[in-house]
């Protein structure tokens, strides 16, 4: 299935591995932080409303 990359197989595969890993990490970190900050803000706003 994987094309014959010849003597450059290591270079090509490592370039894809590093790039895709960094992109996936960036997306996961961004989503997780977005969800956490949204949750924390809702908690603070909810607390403020119940206090006031």
């Amino acid at each position, binding site marked *: 299935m994987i094309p014959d990359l010849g003597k*450059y197989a290591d270079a090509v595969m490592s370039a894809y591995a590093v790039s895709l890993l960094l992109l996936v990490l960036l997306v996961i970190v961004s989503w997780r932080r977005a969800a956490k900050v949204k949750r924390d*803000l809702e908690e603070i706003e909810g607390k403020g409303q119940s206090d006031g």
Partner: protein
Amino acid sequence: MASLWEYANPKKFIDTTSRFIPWLFGSALICLVTGLVWGFFFTPDDFRQGSTVKIIYLHVPSALMAINAWLMMLVASLIWIVRRHHVSALAARAAAPVGVVMTLIALATGAIWGQPMWGTWWAWDPRLTSFLILFLFYLGYIALWEAIENDDTAADLTSILCLVGSVFALLSRYAVNFWNQGLHQGASLSLDKEENVHDVFYHPLLICIAGFVLLFIALVFLRTQTEIRARRMRALMARERLTA
């Protein structure tokens, strides 16, 4: 027609971008999978560079986005300086980590590609060096935002840093044209048919570039929303401390 400045309202920005974010992520995924699968599995080796030409589908889009992310930050910073819209300053802040990852991918794939082609991982070539400086500017920009507690002061100082760094963003793009020396080849994409990369590589490359652009926009929207909420959270907590 709604004025562009309406989106300077944080609530309006969050409401509007929330509708687009899932579509942007979905389109980015489709483009990236299509472009990378096409490029990796269904394009031939280059007659000079062999199978390493497949690295082009990651290297060129990430390098393009590294430069354009900084230019987007420049526009957002100028809007902050002139019109004092918080959303624009926060959008610039949100784009920086995305830009730094794009720069890192461009540097890493460039080094991995350069080793078998040039016989070295790194050379102090004009384009490589200006890209490394751009990477350092990104790190400095992020560090400056983190180091200053007052959001408005941080936005002011990072905007100035962004203006200065723009010189290196442009140098990264045009270094090859300014200095006709160094190992790095000329631009892969050109309006000149002779200079442009061959069609067989060009079409999947265009799809990969579209994927990187869509991913960048999706991430900047998502991260700007996060920065807006984090800023509101800091303001509420500060108010709470004052009234306690």
